[in-house]
């Protein structure tokens, strides 16, 4: 299955893969650290495990980034 992760083409062997698994495989240690879009729409954290990906899906994730002052 071919999907796009943060804009990059990515081939996945398995046909049964959740958004959460893709995040983990891409170095996201906990889903609390990121916000996730599936095909351009934000997806609730509770749905990351249960949402399975299909051909040509696009997953984008953004890390929380604080920083600035102190």
């Amino acid at each position, binding site marked *: 299955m071919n999907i796009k992760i*943060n*804009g990059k083409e990515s081939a996945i062997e398995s046909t049964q893969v959740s958004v959460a698994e893709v995040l983990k495989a891409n170095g996201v240690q*906990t889903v*609390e*650290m990121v*916000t996730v*879009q599936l095909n*351009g729409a*934000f997806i*609730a954290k509770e749905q990351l495990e249960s949402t399975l990906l299909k051909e040509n899906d696009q997953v*984008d994730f*953004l*890390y*929380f*980034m*604080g*920083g*600035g*002052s*102190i």
Partner: protein
Amino acid sequence: MNFTEEQIERYSRHLILQNVGVEGQQRIMEGKVLVVGAGGLGSPVALYLAAAGVGTIGLIDGDVVDRTNLQRQVIHFTADLNVPKVESAANKIKLINPEVKVNTYKTLLMPDNAFEIINDYDFIIDGTDNFPTKFMVNDACVMAQKPFSHGGILRFEGQTMTYVPGSACYRCVFGGPPPKDAVPSCSQAGVLGSIAGMLGTIQATEALKYLVGTGDLLTNRMLIFDALKMKFREVNFTPNKNCKLCGEHPEIKTLEMEEMPACDLH
């Protein structure tokens, strides 16, 4: 407004610039920008806004200059150790450009003073270092319909987006503050000093573009860079209908702030 000879000289590179010119420079000189946090991001922002001739710059920060700040907070010098950051920054602004009016607030932006302070400004820069304050700045700006620039940096990375009334807000993107300790802060994970400059100058540019009224702002998109690879990417989005603040069924009606994690209070 008539420019003096000195102003024509000082701002000549703006005046000859298409998209800015005399009118744009006038708008910059009439503009009022509030910089929340006179630290890593606030430093370059304040320096460039001052040099550009922004009419009024507000600085809000409750801290004094600490030795660990000097690696990236370039508006503060070694001689400023223990001086309140707003005072140290105001002094540099005056040295760069005596025409700029500076308002200093040696305090933290809190729900009880936020509206009173931001109402005086046209554009707000979020240069804060913790999520409860970041969300509070967002909520205050959305409620008061004030445009603002979000900025975050960590290690070798930065992210920034601009809000204007009607565009996606920070809460549309991130929902709410992450659980304590789920996300490291700069003091826990480190940050390359120049990253603050890279991100802060983007924020300053957004403020100037907004004042001038030119170009495309970073609305409905997040610009992210990884300076180790020196790659920039953009994530596009639209206002989130489930946003608790600006969505279809808003739950947040009053300005509040989550408790500050103890590790960030230092």
